[in-house]
């Protein structure tokens, strides 16, 4: 079975600290990889390497069975990176922020679909509230709406998620799991860095990062 996302012999050092070395993995459609490990062990760095934001010292990233250059146009249209920061503008409303993120993703979701997504994540009533006034969890939920509209193999098959359930309540976390499972069921893949328990079922592998000296 062909892998949708593959890391081959990835190495990265930060300063004098070797974060990982010779790290290889492959994810076929429908599979997820959960990154675990203590703070500072390199979970975020690995996600950034896969996204192409950080240049690995050695190794290759393959997307859709093709070796991809960091931030090449094929990589950018396949990868959805959901970072530590929410990438929201405090001055915009929740609906505006969602629309902007989707526009940047070149996601063709219509206005109705966006409204649906906001309903799914429970922000419909607050959609015209300035983001500054939203709670941390509600801000994270705008990101969930984006994920909801990006699921499946067709649009953005590769999801790279950094502590996605941070600040979410138990309902929010359950919703997140539900969205990711739908994404996997439709043939997508996901790499998820988290230190929180996650009740993800299906073809899920865990990678315990320990960090080298």
């Amino acid at each position, binding site marked *: 079975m062909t892998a949708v996302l593959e890391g081959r012999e990835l190495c990265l050092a930060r300063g004098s600290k070797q974060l990982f070395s010779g790290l290889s993995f492959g994810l076929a459609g429908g599979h997820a990889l959960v990154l675990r490990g203590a703070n500072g062990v390199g979970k975020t760095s690995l996600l950034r390497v896969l996204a192409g934001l950080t*240049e690995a010292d050695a190794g290759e990233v393959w997307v859709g069975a093709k070796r991809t250059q960091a931030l090449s146009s094929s990589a950018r249209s396949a990868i959805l990176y959901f970072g530590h920061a929410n990438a929201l503008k405090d001055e915009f409303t929740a609906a505006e922020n969602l629309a902007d993120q989707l526009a940047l993703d070149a996601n063709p979701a219509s206005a109705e679909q966006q409204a649906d997504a906001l309903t799914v994540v429970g922000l419909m009533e607050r959609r015209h509230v300035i983001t500054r006034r939203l709670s941390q969890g509600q801000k994270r939920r705008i990101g969930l709406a984006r994920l909801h509209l990006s699921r499946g193999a067709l649009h953005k098959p590769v999801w790279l998620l950094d502590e996605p359930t941070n600040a979410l309540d138990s309902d929010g976390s359950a919703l997140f799991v539900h969205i990711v499972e739908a994404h996997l069921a439709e043939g997508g893949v996901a790499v998820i860095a988290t230190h929180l328990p996650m009740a993800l079922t299906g073809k899920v592998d865990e990678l315990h990062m320990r960090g080298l000296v």
Partner: protein
Amino acid sequence: MSAVPVNQPALSTPESGVWITLVRDTKLAIRSKGELAQALAFFIIVVSLFPLAIGPEAAILKRIAAGVVWVCALLAVMLTLPRLFQSDYLDGTLEQLALSPYPLPLLCAGKMLAHWLSTGVPLALVAPVLGLQFGLEASELLVMVAGLLLGTPVLTMLGAIGAALVLGVRGGSILMALLVLPLYTPVLIFGAGAVEASIAGIDAMANLSLLAAMLLFGLVTTPFAAATAVKISLD
């Protein structure tokens, strides 16, 4: 068996990359009017300080008018440069820009255009009032506005490269001044030169054409340099 198709979204209008950031940043600038007004107020106050320091003698004021207005415009633009990328860098938007299917140089071009609309254009529009204080004639004021409209976008474009390079670096704003100000000298020379030429009764077209040439050259090169700088700073 083939891999899961990696779908290339239809980017039917590549200029829409420019459009996305242009609209977004302009909307942001309008929502935070305060910042917009701050740069303008800074410009007006600093220009008005010069007569206090030098004296009210009309001949001297007219002699220094072009230089004062241009140096102050340069500083005002420079002070607003962090607005280009700083907040996007801090809230994670810059990563999303770099990962967007739209080409990053076009997204950067949109940001530059929005920045110019919210700084360069207002500066150019207030400049005649300040020029009047210094005793410039109508034709000279016209040349000053034309020069500022041609020159301030170059300031924004060169500044964007510096602003992107110092993202997340300690002492960022002073460092940015060190990087950017030497690069600003040609714009200063041709911009102030245009006004002085018209004061001296010489045709200012030569200076203005040189500014226009720099603008065109900047338009085709700086978005790529700024995009490279953004990628470097995200690494």
